[in-house]
């Protein structure tokens, strides 16, 4: 019918018949990874709950391999979609094996006894997430990272074609986050399992996703590939940030710029200045930064934190007008910080700034 494995048609979702997000149009090929991003309370979980039939859709349909999800019998849907949720799993004597084995529910008979084949699949699922050694540990005693892997094993034991994960990295440290997402990527590539998840970590979403959907207000604002979505003009309005607060280069957001007239000038570059900019921000001291090439490692943080950045086009001699402006600003400052950027043929203007600071006696010995 179409080349897409998964697609939604004019889907509207919400609670008690009131639509929260309208006209959702998503389409994915087999083995693609879609990430929902957006502010808290935007409705990412509501969308995911509707895709997994936990929540009845208000209108529209979800088609999986051409079949309507909402018209499918519950057990048929359970053989296609499995989930990893934020809901906490309790049960004092529940073992990791028990949790993973519960994924076999749609395949076992009336009494729920596992066949040899079921056991083999559960073992394989645990091995897939590198949790075989945990099988007979009590689930409650596992670390957050281990629990999340076991829950993913549960989802795999269900032999799904689509896995839906609601904020799977929430309680995980950096290493476990990376491990989990690498695992998802491998499953998508090797087993052609389609993955739909929500993430708060934009940097991870950007690295993992084939497609990204931005959820805010009553609709999906944008949908596209990471290079189409991770731009300041899309990300900043999505999270109601000031323009350029989020930088596509370091993928992060700085704390608010200090107010007031700058009395400090930072001569920075090559990434030597970013920590100094942040230290000044913490001390509440407004500052000038320069002269930075717009491709410099220090440039994104300077743009967010400095009262003014004296910027120069890369791969060209620094414009004399910019140098003059920077010198004027430097003279107005009580202190000048030099962060140790190398000065050579390409950035002789910095030497002029440094000499002027020495002449004025405002060059500080300590960086900060």
């Amino acid at each position, binding site marked *: 019918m179409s080349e897409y494995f998964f697609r939604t048609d004019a889907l509207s979702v919400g609670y008690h018949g009131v639509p929260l997000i309208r006209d959702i149009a998503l389409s994915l090929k087999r083995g693609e990874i879609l990430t929902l991003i957006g502010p808290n309370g935007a409705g990412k979980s509501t969308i995911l709950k509707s895709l*997994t*039939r*936990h929540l009845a859709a208000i209108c529209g349909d979800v088609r999986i391999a051409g079949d309507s999800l909402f018209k499918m*019998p*519950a*057990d*048929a*849907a*359970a*053989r296609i*979609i*499995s*989930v990893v*949720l934020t*809901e*906490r*799993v*309790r*049960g*004092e*004597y*529940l073992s990791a094996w*028990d*949790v993973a084995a*519960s*994924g076999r*529910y*749609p395949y*076992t008979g*009336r*009494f*729920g*006894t596992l066949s040899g084949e079921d056991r083999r699949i559960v073992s394989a699922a645990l091995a897939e997430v590198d949790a075989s050694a945990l*099988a*007979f540990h009590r689930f*409650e005693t596992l670390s957050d990272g281990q629990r999340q892997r076991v829950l993913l094993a*549960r989802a795999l034991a*269900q032999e799904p074609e689509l896995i839906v994960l609601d904020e799977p990295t929430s309680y995980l440290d950096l290493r476990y986050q990376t491990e989990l997402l690498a695992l998802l990527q491998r499953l998508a590539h090797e087993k052609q399992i389609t993955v739909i998840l929500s993430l708060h970590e934009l940097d991870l979403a950007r690295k993992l996703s084939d497609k990204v959907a931005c959820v805010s207000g009553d609709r999906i604002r944008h949908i596209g590939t990471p290079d189409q979505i991770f731009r300041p003009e899309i990300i900043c309005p999505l999270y109601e940030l000031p323009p350029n607060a989020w930088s596509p280069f370091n993928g992060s957001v700085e704390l608010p710029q200090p107010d007031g007239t700058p009395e400090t000038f930072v001569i920075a570059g090559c990434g030597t200045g970013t920590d100094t900019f942040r230290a000044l921000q913490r001390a509440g001291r407004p500052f000038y930064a320069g002269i930075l090439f717009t491709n410099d490692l220090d440039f994104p943080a300077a743009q967010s934190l400095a009262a003014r950045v004296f910027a120069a086009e890369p791969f060209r001699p620094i414009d004399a007008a910019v140098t003059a402006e920077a010198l004027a600003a430097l003279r107005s400052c009580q202190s000048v910080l030099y962060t140790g950027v190398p000065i050579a043929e390409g950035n002789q203007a910095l030497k002029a700034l440094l000499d002027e600071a020495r002449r004025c006696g405002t060059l500080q010995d300590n960086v900060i």
Partner: protein
Amino acid sequence: MHDHADNRTVLVFALLSFGLIGLLLFGTAVGSVRIRPEALLSILLQGGENAPEAAILFRLRLPRVLLAALLGGALSLSGCLMQAYFRNPIAGPFVLGISSGAKLTVALTMITALSRTWYLSSWSLVLAAFAGALISMGFVLLAARSIRNMSMLLVAGIMISYICSAVTEFLVTFAEDSDIANLHSWSQGSFSGANWSDVVVSALIVGAAMIASVFLAKPMGAWLLGESYAKSVGFNVRDFRLTLILLASLLAGCCTAFAGPVSFVGIAVPNLARLLLKTERPQLLLPACVLLGAVFCLGCDIIARCAFAPLELSISTVTALFGAPVVIALLIRRSKKRQMGG
């Protein structure tokens, strides 16, 4: 790969089965008239109807031990279903107000029948108890429609239980003196009035409930992980919850009808079974609850009637003595775990 777990399971079930058979024989033998083992066996196996002990054996001892075992199993099974329903090991038939509802309607039926000298069959008592349990449950379900939070639902159950107890007290206060004497022994909880008709009715109900619970084991296993995960594997949450509640109230009602309120069995035994088996799998837990509940209740009843013979203790006195420490230990462990952030 499951050898260790399997050994434990086999051992626990073997011990419980032997324990139950042993206690059944022991309970039949001991009492104010002691029946010697060889006499007991010859009466049971060769049908020595004319032996001097036969009357005691068939009229008093056998119905009593069988009823204690059956109702112990029924209460534990009911408690286990309730705990599964709430995913909370502190739940039991009393917490939801189901036992109190049953007690109220049984008291009402007894007062009406006694004052008019009607004959009450075992079935009519069970029917009254089940009706009371269902009325309580109706209120709980009504509350559940607007209260999504499980712990708030438990509070609603406790309130319903207080209301039922208040009405029962009111009825007992205004009942005639002669009625109170009869009502009093029942409302304390006792297996002393056991007869064969009670045994047969209990056996039918407990047997049916056990068969039903075999079919409940699979959805109960999925339910254990939480409602959302349960839904995601494709089962009908609404039907499952209704079945669980109906079955639990029938079992709790049945027990209240024949033995009055028996405390702590429903809440303590499932937790003990979990501790013994070290599993949450309903396929093992449900039968273990029935066996352990039977052993627990039968043991307690033997103590109740033999410890201070000829004086007889109420069954709840003994079950509380053994059951309450289990619940206290459970509460302490839970709060410790919470403090540790678990």
